[in-house]
């Protein structure tokens, strides 16, 4: 009988100890999780998101610039493994809504936007920040989000894009067209500017060397100068919207420098370090097979002696594929760690010139155009009439050479309805106005 009692006690102890087991809430043992930073994030976690957003902005850029460059007839892109650079993108037939050129940059830009949305939520849900620091994070995150939305729009254009994407299972609608999307992007930029203006004297986070300038005081790493960077992007958006007076206001508030310093600006940086990425647009000169080449008309249409032509270098042997022949390499980026501009002073000067022309301030516009022609191009001053269609032609010509291989030509010709002026290289080619909406945005029905 005594034994039985002992056994009962033993049994109950064992059963109770097992029954009362609670499983602990676990965190991912392999990497940080999105849910983990949304509440009570540390400054370290928030700053990792800041770096992540910047890294993400530099990812998937190759395809973005190849599309803009090939369609805009800045460059040829030859690829021994993929004929679509010299096929689909040069308008030989139908575009594929599930091809790499439709999806790669699109998905990457929205991944940046997702990370920015996480930062926007996380920085407002943690007790460790001052009010000014929160505004700093919000200003940064909204700026980069709006910039990436603009990059999506540059390729989707009148298909429209989704602006509200914070809830993956309840995504917002597509804008009806490009104009509506630009208006909403402009709103996000102005919100970013308001947040940034309230961010105090310094940020709680570090930015990359792409935000630093030769003169420390000018670096875009403090709210006062970051605000000028936002204004620069706002000026670009208003220019695209055709709001030239507003564009002029913004560009004058930006970091525009009319004394020169054409490369002053904000850049996406590259490095050979593990986990980092290299500049995808760099190819060594005279590479055969897969390489990037200057479009022949960019060389033949130029004013002889234009110093900007040095961005393309003559090859030892001509490159030839699919009835396309090129004599010069695209050498805008001279190493695999050359940074790619988000926006720089040379573009701001041209934005200002364009806004001045469009508001009939032709003499002031000529001053800036001459600055570009003489100081950057080493060609003489503008001698044409101080009047509208002529000066717009001149402006687009200067943009073509100053901003060559920086993804502008296609967008510029499209906003002036001049896509039909771009070169048709071969019978059957055409200029595509925009990329198709990606397959997975539509769902496979009908796909």
């Amino acid at each position, binding site marked *: 009988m005594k034994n039985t009692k002992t056994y009962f006690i033993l049994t109950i102890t064992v059963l109770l100890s097992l029954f009362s087991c609670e499983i602990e809430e676990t965190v*991912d043992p*392999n990497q940080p*999780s999105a849910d983990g930073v949304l509440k009570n994030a540390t400054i370290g976690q928030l700053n990792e998101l800041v*770096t992540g957003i910047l890294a993400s902005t530099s990812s998937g850029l190759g395809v973005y610039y190849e599309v803009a460059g090939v369609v805009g007839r800045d460059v040829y892109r030859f690829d021994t493994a993929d004929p679509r650079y010299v096929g689909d993108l040069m308008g030989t037939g139908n575009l594929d809504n599930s091809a790499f050129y439709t999806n790669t940059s699109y998905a990457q830009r929205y*991944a940046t936007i997702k990370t920015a949305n996480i930062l926007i939520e996380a920085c407002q849900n943690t007790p460790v920040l001052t009010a000014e620091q929160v505004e700093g994070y919000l200003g940064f995150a909204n700026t980069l989000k709006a910039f990436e939305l603009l990059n999506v729009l540059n390729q989707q254009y009148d298909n429209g894009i989704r602006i509200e994407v914070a809830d993956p299972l309840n995504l917002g609608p597509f804008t009806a067209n490009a104009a509506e999307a630009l208006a909403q992007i402009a709103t996000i930029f102005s919100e970013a500017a308001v947040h940034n203006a309230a961010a105090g004297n310094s940020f709680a986070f570090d930015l990359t060397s792409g935000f630093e300038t030769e003169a420390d005081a000018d670096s875009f790493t403090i709210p006062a100068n970051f605000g000028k960077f936002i204004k620069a992007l706002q000026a670009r958006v208003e220019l695209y919207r055709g709001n030239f007076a507003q564009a002029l206001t913004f560009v004058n508030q930006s970091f525009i420098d009319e004394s020169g310093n054409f490369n002053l600006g904000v850049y996406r940086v590259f490095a050979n370090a593990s986990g980092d990425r290299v500049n995808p647009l760099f190819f060594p000169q005279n590479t055969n097979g897969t390489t990037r080449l200057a479009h022949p008309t960019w060389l033949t249409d130029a004013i002889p002696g234009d110093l900007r032509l040095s961005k393309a270098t003559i090859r030892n042997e001509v490159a030839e594929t699919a009835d396309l022949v090129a004599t010069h390499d695209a050498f805008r980026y001279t190493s695999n760690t050359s940074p790619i501009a988000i926006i720089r002073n040379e573009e701001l000067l041209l934005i200002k010139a364009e806004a001045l022309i469009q508001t009939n301030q032709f003499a002031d516009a000529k001053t800036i155009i001459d600055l570009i022609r003489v100081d950057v191009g080493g060609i003489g001053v503008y001698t044409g009439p101080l009047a509208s269609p002529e000066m717009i032609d001149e402006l687009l010509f200067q943009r073509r050479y100053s901003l060559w291989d920086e993804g502008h030509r296609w967008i510029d010709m499209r906003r002036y309805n001049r896509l039909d002026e771009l070169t048709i290289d071969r019978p059957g080619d055409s200029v595509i106005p925009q990329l198709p909406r990606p397959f997975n945005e539509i769902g496979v029905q009908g796909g």
Partner: protein
Amino acid sequence: MTNRFVIGSGANFNLIRKSNSFLKLKLTGGIDYYNNESTLYFPEYLQFTVGRQDGLYSRGNNVTFNTNASAFLIYNTSFNQIDLTSSVGVNRLDQSRELLTTQVQQLVSGQANLQQGGALSVFNRKLDTQDIGYAAQQEANWQDKIIGTASIRLDKSSLNGDPNKLFAYPKFSLAANLANFEFWNVESINQLKLRAAYGEAGGVPNPNPVTLAQSKFTILGATNTGGNTGSVIGAIQGDPNIQPERSKELELGFDIGLLNSRINLEATYYNKTVEDLILQASLPPSSGFTNLVTNLGELKNTGVELALNANVVNTDKVKWSTNLNWWKNVSELTRLDVPAFNPAGGGFGTGLGTVRLEQGKSLTQIVGTKGSATVQELGNTAPDWEMSWNNSVTFLKNFSFSMLWHWKKGGENINLTGLLTDFGGSSYNYDQIISTGERLGDARIAAFFSGQNAALYVENSEYIKLREISLYYSVPKTVLTSMFKDAIQRVRIGVSGNNLLLFSDYSSYDPEVSNFGSGGVLGGVEVTPFPNSKRMFFHIEVGF
């Protein structure tokens, strides 16, 4: 090198023991430690590494440590000739895994050492899981005439979104052995059992087998730029509320034994529903993710299984037993919460034919372009039914012969080998002249480019195969004894073969192969795979 220690122990405590009842406590516990070390060395002079990795050396150490513990109280008693067994208990399973591989490339000549190379990379993943289950079961057996069981399990797991939420899974079964009743007087039928069972079971969201990523987490990936370390959103959206899949199965059947069980027939009908099916679906890329893993659908499988065993000949000289199985399964995706999508491993898109998960359709439907480029259903990788026939014959005392046939009726494959050989001009019937005067291969290629596309290469994959055949001779015991005394107990020699005969109209080598493995939706896509090999074996078996 693999080290493994498995220790298991159990203890039974008889708490009460009477003439017609007992109560006992059953404790079991176990530890399983598994350590797998790997070394991989490709010297720098190997042709395939020259100019690429320039040599590769890697060391891996994977450790798995599992423990389990359970405690059950079991009570048995008899009441009015009914044997009753009750049990209640709990079990707990803890699993811990860590995968670690370190690799260097660009080796210093002749060196196999992690310090003698460059481009060091490390792969490190961990997984810790806990599963706890509570169970109670009641069995009742009335003289082997009627047997009933009812049970319930309550399970929770750290792999679920809410690790402490209990999920209940009941089970019931009832069987009646009619031939055991006194009223049964049909001599020739010695067994007639009617069976009915209903059971529910859970399937926890399993982690990715390679990355050990758990579906409940949305990860932030590591990246860096400008010398700072950063976090970016991962490609797959996790679901913090993910639940286990729940399968509900109703099974009805009967077993008949004739002529003293010389002939047995088993028949089963089942209807199995899987609710809260966990799928990886595509998300619109504007979400920032490419995929989502969560409970997204419901699957229904219904089927019939028939088995007939018979000892056809049973004499001293010849024994022949035969075993005939026939089965059929029909699946339907009854619910899908996302738009239809093409699962990974289901093909190469609608232009070439792909499996597509779509509400209201079979799980294994093949869709593709046909005619005016509209995507439509072109076939199904699942067969209409299957049948196997196994025979074994012993004769002349010491010879035994067996063969296994398999018949797959219906079902289609996406035969991209056909497409590739047409493009290469090497299809077996490429040069056949058809009524239009064209060559058949040219006509197919023209049709492919005019929009017939996938439909041309979705092909019936019915076959009959001789899977196994064997003939053995056992040396008689008397011969062995006279020759070797008792040193050798048994000698058997023989020949056997696999996949020796195939009867099929399928145009490629083997209708049974697949590019993406088999199981689930992965079968039925072929791209010049290596066919199942025909194999012949010669056997000598000696038992000492």
